[in-house]
Every structure is written in C-alpha cells, then in structure tokens.
C-alpha cells in the first residue's frame, strides 16, 4: 500500500473552494482529466491517455468538507481510497489536502502527481499566488 499526500493553501474561503471541490461532477474543471460522469454513488472519469476509471463515491460530507472515493473494477488497482479535505484557515483562506492510499503503491505516485497539478489549478481558479506544494507522502 502506498500512501501519499499533497496540499495547497488557497487564498479563498473554504466554503467557496468546497463549492467546486465538493461537487464530484465538476472534477474535470480542476483535475487533469477530460470528462466526468456521475450517476448516484458512481463516478466515471476519462483520462487524456484514453483510460477510464470507474469510482465509488465513499464520502461526500458537506459539513466536514470531505470527499472520499475509491477506484473500482480496475485491472491494476487492488485497493484505493482517495480523500480530499478542504480545511478553513481563517475566514478567507483554506488548505486543500489530497490524500491517496493505493495498492499497487507505484500508482499512488501518479495519482499524487495529478493531484499536485489539480491543486495548482485550484490556486489559479481562486486567485492564489503560491504554486501548490505538499510534502509528497
């Protein structure tokens, strides 16, 4: 099992950021994928390489501002839990934390890389200056 984590501070309220991050159908607006489809507790995402990931939505907690999902029915992925937290840091600042636990562990690094790009995109969308940097574990 590989466990990785990326985070980024965003100069915007947690509620506003959660408005985007907390909508599972809008993932393609900030994550490096081409399209998103949601049906109930299921989500499908299309990657630029042509791959499609089927996902179960595990948690969508608007009070905690936590989204969790799991890649399923995938020939490579044995187990996976992705967690995105939007945590307020005062009234007009927040930190977005993207955590991935994945077997095989190698794939966790690639998800983390994409998450890093996604966090940078969130900073662009919400007008923050600092590029997204986490500690990568």
């Amino acid at each position, binding site marked *: 099992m*590989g*466990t990785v984590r*990326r985070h980024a501070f965003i100069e915007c309220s947690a509620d506003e950021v959660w408005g985007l991050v907390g909508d599972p159908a809008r993932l393609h607006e900030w994550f*490096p*994928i081409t399209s998103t489809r949601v049906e109930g507790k299921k989500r499908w995402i299309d*990657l*630029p*390489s042509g*791959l499609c990931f089927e996902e179960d939505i595990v948690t969508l907690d608007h009070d905690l501002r936590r989204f969790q999902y799991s890649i399923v029915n995938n*020939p*490579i992925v044995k187990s996976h839990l992705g967690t995105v937290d939007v945590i307020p840091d005062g009234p007009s600042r927040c930190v977005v934390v993207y955590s991935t636990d994945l077997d*095989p*562990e*190698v*794939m966790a*690094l*690639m998800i*983390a*890389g*994409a998450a*890093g*790009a996604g966090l940078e995109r969130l900073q662009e969308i919400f007008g923050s200056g600092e590029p997204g*940097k*986490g*500690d*990568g*574990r």
Partner: protein
Amino acid sequence: MGRKILFITTDQQRYDALGCNGGRIARTPVLDALATNGINYRRALPQSVVCMPSRSTMITGQHVATHGVWMNGVPLPEEAPSVATTLRDAGYATALIGKAHFEPFLDPFLRFTENQLGTSGDFSKIVDGHVHRGFDHMESASHGGMGNFHYARWLMQNHPEAIGMYYRVLDMSLQVNSAGGGDTGGPQVHDNPIPRDWYHTDWVAERTMAWLDSLPADADWFCWMSFPDPHHPWDPPASEKHRVNWRDLDLPEGYPADRARREALLDDKPRHWRMWYEGEFVSNFEAPASWVPKTLTDDQVREINALTHIENELIDEAIGRVLARISARGWADDLDVVYTTDHGELQGDFGLMFKGPYHTDSLMRLPLIWRPAPSSGVSAADVSTPVGLVSLASTFCHIAGLPEPDYVESSRLPTSDAEARGLGHERVLTEWDSVLFGKIVRLRTITRDNWVATACLPGSVHDGTEGELYDLGSDPLQQKNLWSDPAHRATRDDLLADMWDSLPEASRPSVTWQATRRQCDAPV
C-alpha cells in the same frame, strides 16, 4: 557553415563495455576508431547514477541540486535551461531521437510533453512560447514496444505483432518486472523473436538518418541520438544471440565466484548494500522490487553479460551506419561526435545487478569519447583527469563557437590533461537522493586525485556516520573501504571538505529540503 554535432548516448552502459576501454567481448570497432582519433576520457562520471537526473544534467549543464530532478519520476521543469535551445537560437537545427526521459514515462494523465508528442505522433510542441526543450524534432523510444513513444506508435502501425515479442518491463503492480527467462532464469532476461530491423536500436539509427536526410547540405545541426540499450531488459533480437555464447564467458572481475567473499565485500560497505542484497531494504524503483540479489547465480551473471555485449555490438554497428550516411552527405570533416551514457550497470559486481545508491565504478565510471571535427585540428588524446557529464552542455556550445552559457555549472571538456586544470577540472561530484514511501537514502560523492569518497547522509538506514573511501589506484575494483581506517582519516576529511565546498548550496543537508524539493510524480 559551422561544425555539426552528433551526440550519441546509450543507457546504463559500463566503461568497460567498449574495446577501447579494455572490453574483451563485444566488438566495438566504430567506437574504438572514434576513441583512437579523438579524446578518450578515462575517468568520466555522472552527477547521478539514474536516468532522469543524469539526462537532466546533460541538457542543462547543471548539477542535480540545481536542476532539481533529484530522483527518477521528478520532471525537469519546462522552463529549465536547455543546451538545445541555446544551439537552436544560434541557428542550429536540433533533434533528439531515441530515449529522452526528462519527464516521467508513467503518465496516465498525459501531463508531460514528451508523452504527448509520442502519443500524437507530433515531433515538436510550443510550450509557453518556446519549442519544448529546444528540439525542432523529438522522436522517442524506450526499452520495449509499449508506452507513449514514437517507436511504440511506429511498431503499432507497422508491426503490431512485434509489440508482445518484447519483455514486459513492468509487472501487473507496475513495478519493474522480476520475471526471469533465457537459459538461466535471470531477471529481465528474455528471448525476443523480433526481427533485427524492427528492434529499437536499429529504429533509432534509421530515424536519425531520416532526420539528417531532411536537412539541407549547408545546415548546421545538433543531433542527440539516444539508444535505449544496453539498459535492461536484456532481450536483444534472438537472431543475434549467436554472437556471444554465455557459456563461454568468464565471470566478471568484480564478481568474486565465492559467495562468502562477495558477502564480505558487501559487509565492508555501508549497510544499505548488504540490506538490498538480502532483500531487506529496497530503496528505489530502479531494480525489481521482488527480486532478491542474493539469489543471483553465476550462470545468470554470465548470460546477462553476454546479452549486454550483444546489445553493445548492435549499437556500435548502428552508429557505423549513421556515420557512413553523414560522410555520404559530405559532412564528415566538420563533424564532432560525442559519445557517452547516462550511468553504468552493476552487471554482477559485488553479486548485484541493475542500479541504485551504489557509488562505485560499476555505476559511476562511464565511457566518454569526444572525436572533434577533423577540420578543427584538435589532437587525439587520453584524458585521465576526472570529468563529469555536467561539462557536456558547455562543450557543445564550445564546438558551435558560442560563449559558455551563464546557466552551466562546469566548463567544457578538456582536450588534454594539460588543459584540464586550467579549465577547472579537478573534482567531480555525484549525488543520490531517493525517498520511497518513507525509505530515504541520500549520498554525496566526490572523485578527485584517484580517490572516491561517499558520505551517507542521515536517512532511513544511515545515521550520518557511514561512508565509503576507495583508493582507485591501488583498489580499482573498490573492494577495500577505507572510510573508517585511521591511516586515511586525513585524506577522507580533506576530500569531504572539498566536496561540501564545491557542491551547490542546495545539495547540502538541510531541514528545508523536504519542503522545498520538487515533487516526484511517478516511479520512473
């Protein structure tokens, strides 16, 4: 018209692979002739012993800590300097054909330009207003028939039946495959029925010639021809296996046949050596995670060496064809050829294979030949002064008649030992950093005055007190570690002081490294 530059690299090739460097098995007459007529560097070293950091040093002329690609999987920033850009700005046509690897290979989100080009079939892309990496033409290949590479695309379009002929480099866990094959069951050994014409070595040469054919006669050009071999998997075309019978080979000098002797050598080194040998500590992705070096047999060492020699012969012959084409174009007199590799291969030394945090000649002593253009009048020479791949970028600019770029961290390669000191060539620095799900190994190495000293920085298995010190003159196989020998304490301390004075500031141990280093986005 100016001088043309053919920059040839292989991947994971040892110094002793070539006849001109003492190799006795592979026949490498083309490279031997280049060495005879050019400058053969007897102590050339990389700044990292894995692909992405080392290749990033080649193109930027910078040490690892400066360009920031500290480990495979860390992409070279798009805005990093590139000697290809400098040459292109000066009017050179530029190409890279073969293995690039400045950006991660495993890229399902297709985030990286190299992979985008390989997938689309395009040969260049404008990124942020600049031609990506400064190459008019990038045409990529790697170690097999799959992936986001032009070669894989060509194979799919023309010979799809050949894709499955190659060894599968990764297993179903996306780890480096440990499955064995051939006659001995050696890891990453495979019988490959692919016709030689379709093999990536010949493809790289063919595509290089095609690009050269596209240029006008009066063009100045810089072409990086980058062969993926002899990097594992060891699966050359089966039609060529007759060249070297593994059963005829002696065991390598660095591989004592006696197991107890091998293990005693490992125990004389910092603990990560023996821990990997036992399968207790896999610190990096560059070797199969599930393979235990202790299981390596004498015959597996022989077979892997034989296949490596075959791959080296194919490379030499491919280079010969490209040089003949260049001559036919009338460019021979103005052609500079620079030949090297990104790092070495353990190839049985100390009972180990592949690569990792092991800073001995197996991985650090590289073939490096510069055959200056005959029209330049530069004399042939052997250079024994240590030099680094960090000097390549400034060398290419020198050949092109350009001033040394302000972004490089080393002057050009010397043309003689007499010239070396004046150019500041005295020491070479090599770095290793790996962080793999909490397993941390960090090494800093200096090579100078026929000594090599490596400090193990604090990490998962080192407390900062361990290291290696070898006298390359009396111990060419680095089998006697003098790190803790009081008689050599002064030498060790002097080397380490020089190393810390000479390394870029960013390479020093720092509490901020974890927070400031570039992110690793893939295993490779």
